[in-house]
């Protein structure tokens, strides 16, 4: 169903939480008024362009900058040697740090400009600064780099085989880490006891995030004050400030990182890249503003990739169809270097989700991280959780088939039961709350499932192939309790900070350390704060994304903003109300314990006519003419909110597709998304997040994939070659919700940004294999292009002697 938007003027503060009000971000965005990074023009601004490796793996013999330096408008050309010079800013080694450590991690050097070697196509070798944008690009093209080419490897299994060329001297056999979770022995025993097992081998392909706005940065150094301002496409300005400060040696308190309007991220703007850091370094070197904006080709070559798993997995069942064990072995492609959060993605964000929605008594996961000659691989929408859900839900399909059970009913019998929450899995997490049957039931209703199976049968008789696929996904978000994150290797706390400030006139500014880039935080956070303080929504302004304005912050990723940032705002607002209550009691000549607060009014309990509004209290707090003894003037509060646990959204997505075995084409008949993301602050925005997430999942299932040749050359380096789904490629989505509040946070929210992307791919693959069951096709790798589908049908037909499924001899093939 489509949720109708609501005019915020029609909603009171008491009712605004949960209201589908229109976004306040939109007027600037629909009129061209919004300012993105590349829109910023500063006086005397120079432009930077990056000279990048043409090859996937090579030693650099020489970099000749003389021709470039002589060109019109060129200010300077710089290589790694220039970074290390004594008369240029900062001190060696100019390496990008990794923000998540594992005990077995090979923490290799990641120089911001190549130090004698390049390890992926696009690796930065030199930078050119010129007066104008085109001049910088021209001069970058004139830098002459001599290479000695080396063998490249792009596949993690090949990289780890022992036969591949090693990327880093201190990472033997290209092993980045070796990691496991769960109980190997107990799981082996479960498989020995099993009466049925099923297994799968699959690839979760590399994908390119493709935020519509390319990465960009403008740096402006002020030598008089030693202040360095960096405006950049960031999902987490405070984190970027901290990391950048270390790399270029500029003090954190004199570095301002501001994210202007940011045109999407999906993870790609979390990470700390070389380019933005180099812009800052150039501005400091040249004492003038410098801008760099990635071309789309550069985003394809340098934005951190997502996914990239090779996996074997198996599942064990008892006679009744209860799952008793699950075992997974994955080789994760980490690319050429360790990106900011890369080690966490295929480990703690993947292995901890291998229980899915199911009560599985024994699980073991083993992951080997591999260095390869592709760009660094890091968090992309979902980050580890889509890969886990893909494995679990593909296996559940195989298992149901093995048991001869309906895939929906097989899942249902294995769900963690409602009464088991909080539920501790065998992979180190405790699910907060869940009612897993509800979304499943709703999805079955929306699909008209009983009727579908009849229709499927009839269609097959007519030579048409319909299939249904389920995905009962679980997601961990609201990253995270800091103590736990620290135990797992995070080099940062994962709290969130906010400041709620009343102005003397009674209006409010709330500052939060998250950094939205399309999620509508200015709207939803104002809903939260208006509701807590009982003031008009229009009286609340939200500020995000600027280290100079916001005390601290950890940023927006991992679907954490509402659960952690929103909760921090509640905490700050409640502190403000507590102080205001004291002032109100003083003014009403009552004991604070006798003063109640409702809808923005403080009232004496039992004497409702004696009251004062919180906005009047704010005025008094700043006048400070008559304050309670020992109370400071002013009315504002800061808080750091550290969650007790992750939150665990869940849901059931299901697709009905029709597959043409003659052409390999897949058509959606229906896509159903039933999600439980806890309480919803703004259902319209929730729905939009689901839509967008599903579209990216559809992209991965059917269209997208980063392809490299044997030399590490990107073959899908433009929007012509890499298929970002268009409007006609994405199905109409039928969305619905159930609501199971999280008990961990004051809003009862879970998180919604990644749900659709986590859920969709396996729903679609399961639907396609269901459709092609008569041909014995039970797996097709993503993206399921018509060619791959056709080849799968063709291969199965050949394998079993070319039986036509319509002649009644098809037996489901070999599985």
């Amino acid at each position, binding site marked *: 169903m*489509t949720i109708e*938007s609501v005019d915020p003027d029609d909603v009171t503060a008491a009712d605004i939480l949960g209201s589908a009000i*229109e*976004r306040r*971000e*939109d*007027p*600037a*965005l*629909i*009129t*061209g*008024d*919004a*300012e*993105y990074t*590349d*829109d910023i*023009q500063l006086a005397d601004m120079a432009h930077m362009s990056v000279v990048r490796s043409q090859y996937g793996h090579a030693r650099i013999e020489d970099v000749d900058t003389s021709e470039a330096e002589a060109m019109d408008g060129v200010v300077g050309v710089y290589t790694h040697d220039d970074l290390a010079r004594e008369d240029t800013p900062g001190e060696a080694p100019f390496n990008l740090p990794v923000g998540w450590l594992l005990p077995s991690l090979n923490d290799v050097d990641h120089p911001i400009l190549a130090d004698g070697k390049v390890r992926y196509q696009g690796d930065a070798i030199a930078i050119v600064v010129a007066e104008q*944008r*085109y001049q910088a690009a021209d001069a970058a093209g004139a830098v002459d780099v001599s290479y000695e080419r080396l063998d490249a490897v792009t596949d993690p299994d090949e990289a780890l085989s022992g036969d591949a060329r090693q990327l880093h001297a201190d990472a033997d056999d290209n092993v980045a880490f070796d990691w496991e979770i769960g109980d190997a022995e107990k799981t082996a025993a479960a498989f020995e006891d099993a009466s049925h097992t099923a297994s799968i081998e699959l690839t979760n392909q590399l994908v390119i995030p*493709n*935020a*519509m*706005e*390319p990465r960009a940065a403008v740096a402006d150094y002020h030598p008089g004050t030693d202040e360095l301002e960096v405006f950049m496409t960031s999902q987490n300005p405070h984190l970027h400030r901290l990391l950048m400060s270390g790399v270029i040696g500029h003090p954190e308190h004199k570095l301002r990182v501001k994210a202007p*309007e*940011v*045109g*999407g991220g*999906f993870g790609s703007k979390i990470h700390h890249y070389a380019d933005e850091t180099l812009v800052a370094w150039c501005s400091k070197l040249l004492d003038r503003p410098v801008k760099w904006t990635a*071309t*789309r080709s550069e985003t394809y070559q340098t934005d951190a990739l997502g996914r990239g798993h090779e996996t074997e997995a198996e599942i064990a069942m008892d006679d009744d169809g209860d799952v008793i064990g699950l075992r997974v072995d994955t080789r994760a492609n980490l690319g050429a270097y360790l990106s900011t959060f890369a080690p966490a993605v295929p480990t703690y964000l993947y292995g901890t989700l291998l229980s899915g929605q199911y009560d599985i008594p024994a699980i073991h996961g083993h992951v080997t991280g591999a260095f390869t000659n592709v760009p660094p691989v890091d968090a992309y929408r979902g980050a580890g959780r889509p890969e886990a859900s893909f494995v679990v839900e593909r296996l559940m399909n195989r298992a149901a088939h093995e048991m001869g059970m309906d895939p929906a009913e097989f899942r249902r019998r294995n769900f963690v039961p409602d009464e088991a929450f909080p539920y501790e899995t065998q992979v180190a997490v405790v699910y907060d709350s869940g009612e897993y049957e509800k979304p499943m039931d709703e999805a079955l209703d929306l699909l008209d499932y009983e009727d579908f199976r009849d229709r499927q049968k009839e269609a097959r008789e007519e030579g048409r192939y319909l299939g249904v696929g389920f995905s009962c996904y679980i997601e961990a978000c609201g990253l995270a309790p800091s103590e736990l994150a620290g135990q797992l290797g995070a080099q940062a706390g994962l709290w969130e900070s906010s400041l709620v400030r009343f102005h003397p006139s009674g209006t409010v500014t709330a500052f939060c350390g998250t950094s939205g*880039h*399309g*999620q*509508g935080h200015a709207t939803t956070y104002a809903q939260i704060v208006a509701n807590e303080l009982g003031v008009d929504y229009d009286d609340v302004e939200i500020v995000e994304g600027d280290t100079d304005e916001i005390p601290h912050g950890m940023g927006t990723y991992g679907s954490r903003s509402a659960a952690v940032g929103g909760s921090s705002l509640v905490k700050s607002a409640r502190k403000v109300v507590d102080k205001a209550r004291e002032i109100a009691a003083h003014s009403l000549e009552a004991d604070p314990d006798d003063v109640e607060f409702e809808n923005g009014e403080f009232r004496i309990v039992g004497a409702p006519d004696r009251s004062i509004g919180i906005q009047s209290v704010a005025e008094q707090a700043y006048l400070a003419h008559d304050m309670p003894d020992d109370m400071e003037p002013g009315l504002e509060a800061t808080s750091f909110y550290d969650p007790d646990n992750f939150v665990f959204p869940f849901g059931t997505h299901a697709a009905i597709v029709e597959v043409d075995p003659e052409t390999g084409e897949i058509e959606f008949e229906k896509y159903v998304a039933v999600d439980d993301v806890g309480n919803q602050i703004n259902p*319209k*925005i929730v*729905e*939009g997040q689901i*839509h*967008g*997430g*599903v*579209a*990216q999942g559809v992209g991965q299932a059917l269209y997208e994939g980063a392809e490299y040749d044997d030399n590490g050359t990107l073959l899908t380096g*433009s*929007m*012509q070659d890499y298929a*970002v789904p*268009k*409007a*006609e490629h*994405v199905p*109409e*989505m039928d969305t619905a919700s159930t609501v199971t509040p999280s008990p961990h946070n004051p809003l009862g929210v879970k998180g919604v940004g990644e749900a*659709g992307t986590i859920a969709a791919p396996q729903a679609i693959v399961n639907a396609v294999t269901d459709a092609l069951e008569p041909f014995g096709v039970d797996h097709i790798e993503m993206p399921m292009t018509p060619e791959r589908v056709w080849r799968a049908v063709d291969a199965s037909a050949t394998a079993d002697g070319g039986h036509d499924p319509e002649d009644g001899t098809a037996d489901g093939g070999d599985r």
Partner: protein
Amino acid sequence: MTEHDITLTVNGTEHDLTVEARTLLAHALRDELGYTGTNIGCESSLCGACTVHLDGEAVKSCTALAVQADGAEIRTVEGLADGDELHAIQRAFQEEHGLQCGYCTPGMMMTSVELLKENPNPTREEIREGLEGNLCRCTGYQNIVNAVENAAESLRSGAVADGGTVADDPTADDPTTTDGGESK
């Protein structure tokens, strides 16, 4: 590099400027004239973020040269609204939550306006086909399709006081209204 003196009329305001032969229209609009509402996403005509109207037709300004637009009337997202009165397509995008990060939105709206000029009552499928040259990575397109339907209905019913001039010629714009450009 050869330079050319050209005249661009943007949202009703005439601008004289000197550009290199290779200067892209998108860069002339953004960097030279300050119409930064037109975004650049791919420099290759594939994403549509930079779509503007050139003499009434939707074109991708990242692959048109500024010199090709010499003497032309250009309408950008800054020229969609009539003063404070939003165009029907702008209102519809807001009402239907047809945007998230907003980066593709100017181009998406400019294409939609042309689409509705050609076909005032499109089916959902026709809308999806009509938007094939514009990519959005945030919304999953469903609410964009809703927005275009919504705007089509508003425009057909004439409910929109003045924004109903989808087919209008940018020369008809009141040159005294703010045109979104920044003086350099």
